[in-house]
């Protein structure tokens, strides 16, 4: 079943076509990777899906309903959560409050404060941040900041989770832990759409990969197909 589909998605910034007539779809339960050189339009595409930018053209449907034109908070409440390339935490709030806020506001149905607190605590346990729950988010090292962003996104109870370079800036041990976390999240039945530059990670965890270049989709397929694709190699290696 398709959970997310985009048709002819286009975003122009003045004369620049950041995303140009991109079609894509993501099935329930899949892990889909989104790759491409810098400036390919990956984050712009994420911004269009999550509602932070209005699209110039095209239509995005989530679970069969059109979500283009909705505000980010509405899209979040429908079940689409995201993280940001440079972790955008509530820096002055504690780790626990970061997760709690998402639990309280992220869902369509109202939730009581004790329930939200329980949920937030569970999610911090899940991403292994329970021990630092009273620390301020800004005092966390980078790997934990990324984990907290994941926990906060999970707290909104998404069916589709979008990671924008969740592994950037991590060392190899931390990347391995992050990959483990992605697999754990997948086991919860959450569909994942992820932008990533760490090739080892993307090749290992993704079922399918979409390649963007200069705003257009140039390839799509299984990790093996992408790794051997002539066009993709040309784009990445400039051959």
């Amino acid at each position, binding site marked *: 079943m398709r959970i997310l589909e985009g048709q002819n998605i286009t975003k122009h910034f003045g004369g620049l076509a950041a995303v140009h007539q991109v079609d894509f779809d993501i099935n329930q339960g899949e892990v889909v990777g989104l790759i491409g050189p810098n400036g390919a339009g990956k984050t712009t595409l994420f911004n269009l899906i999550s509602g932070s930018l209005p699209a110039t053209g095209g239509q995005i449907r989530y679970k069969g309903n059109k979500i283009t034109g909705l505000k980010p908070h509405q899209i*979040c409440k429908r079940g689409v959560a*995201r993280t940001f390339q440079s972790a*955008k935490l509530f820096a*002055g709030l504690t780790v626990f409050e970061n997760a709690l*806020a998402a639990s309280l*506001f992220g869902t369509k149905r109202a939730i009581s404060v004790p329930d939200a*607190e329980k949920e937030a605590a569970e999610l911090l346990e899940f991403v292994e941040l329970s021990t630092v729950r009273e620390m301020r988010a800004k005092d966390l090292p980078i790997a934990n900041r990324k984990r907290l962003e994941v926990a906060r996104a999970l*707290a909104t109870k998404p069916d589709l989770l979008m990671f924008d370079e969740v592994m950037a800036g991590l060392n190899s041990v931390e990347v391995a832990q992050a990959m483990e976390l992605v697999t754990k999240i997948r086991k919860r039945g959450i569909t994942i759409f992820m932008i990533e530059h760490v090739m080892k990670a993307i090749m290992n965890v993704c079922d399918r990969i979409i390649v963007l270049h200069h705003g257009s989709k140039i390839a799509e397929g299984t990790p093996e197909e992408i790794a051997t694709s002539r066009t993709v190699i040309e784009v990445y290696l400039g051959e």
Partner: protein
Amino acid sequence: MNRVGIIFKKPFSLGLLFLALILFATAPFYVQPYLVILLTSVFMYIIITVSWTIFSGPTHYISLASAAFFGVGVYTSALLGKAFPLPVVIIAGSLISFVLALCIGLLTLRLRGMYFIIFTFSISELMRNFLLWWETTMTGTVGRWVVMVEHVTVYYVILVIFVMVLLTAYLIRRSRFGLALRSIGEQEEAATHIGINTTVVKTITFAISAFFMGATGAIMATKWKYIDPRIAFDPLLSFMPVLMAIFGGTGQLFGPVFGAAIFAYLEEILTTKFPYYYMLLFGSILIVVILFLPHGMVGLVQKWWGGGLNRKNANS
């Protein structure tokens, strides 16, 4: 987050608050009239500062529209004072301010940082100048008489508004609404992406803070007898709450309360004792506070109590 627990875990401070309230409520029976008037003006500053902090404290949107909301209350009082009883006038003043803030909020809360500050400031200036123009060209007389009310009545009304604003500020801080406001202040984009309707949250809070400013303006007008646009929309009233809140520290609820109280008292002392150097002394004190006490007076006292004045922390 456990509201009931927080209140009952501290029976001592709750009792202290209650005692203070009784003291203030009975004050007019045994203190000199001058002190009642002084207390009224101290409470006025506290109310405006605390209501300013309700919105601007957690969101970090610095509003300079306080004078606009206060002035609307003042003018409502001048216009309706003759025809309606005092409670109706005050409620009308608050509600008109509330609605005005809703409109301004929807218009301006998309602006951030400096643009928001300038816009809110322009709003109060626009209203002042518009009324001046209206009164000079349309009605032909500048200024109005306001129906007078007893000093003691003014004091009690101010006291009631004071209790209401403190209670509101406290409840908002403790509630999920307060967490939403702080999230917006920390990272607005992320706040929208975890499901917070930031426009609604900001606009409502902005209007709640305007509500109390309008109420205060409506009652204070009756104390002044005569008002004109320059008095009602005095730009100083937009800056005072910002300075007082910074002076006291916006991190805790009692920061702005103490900040405003000390500030208002200082103003009174300095203007009577050093009329010529008053502003100079005032400014110097403020600079010292901003430079050396980033968390305000309350932050300093808390550090003292924590025994942490000499202790250096790697994270602070």
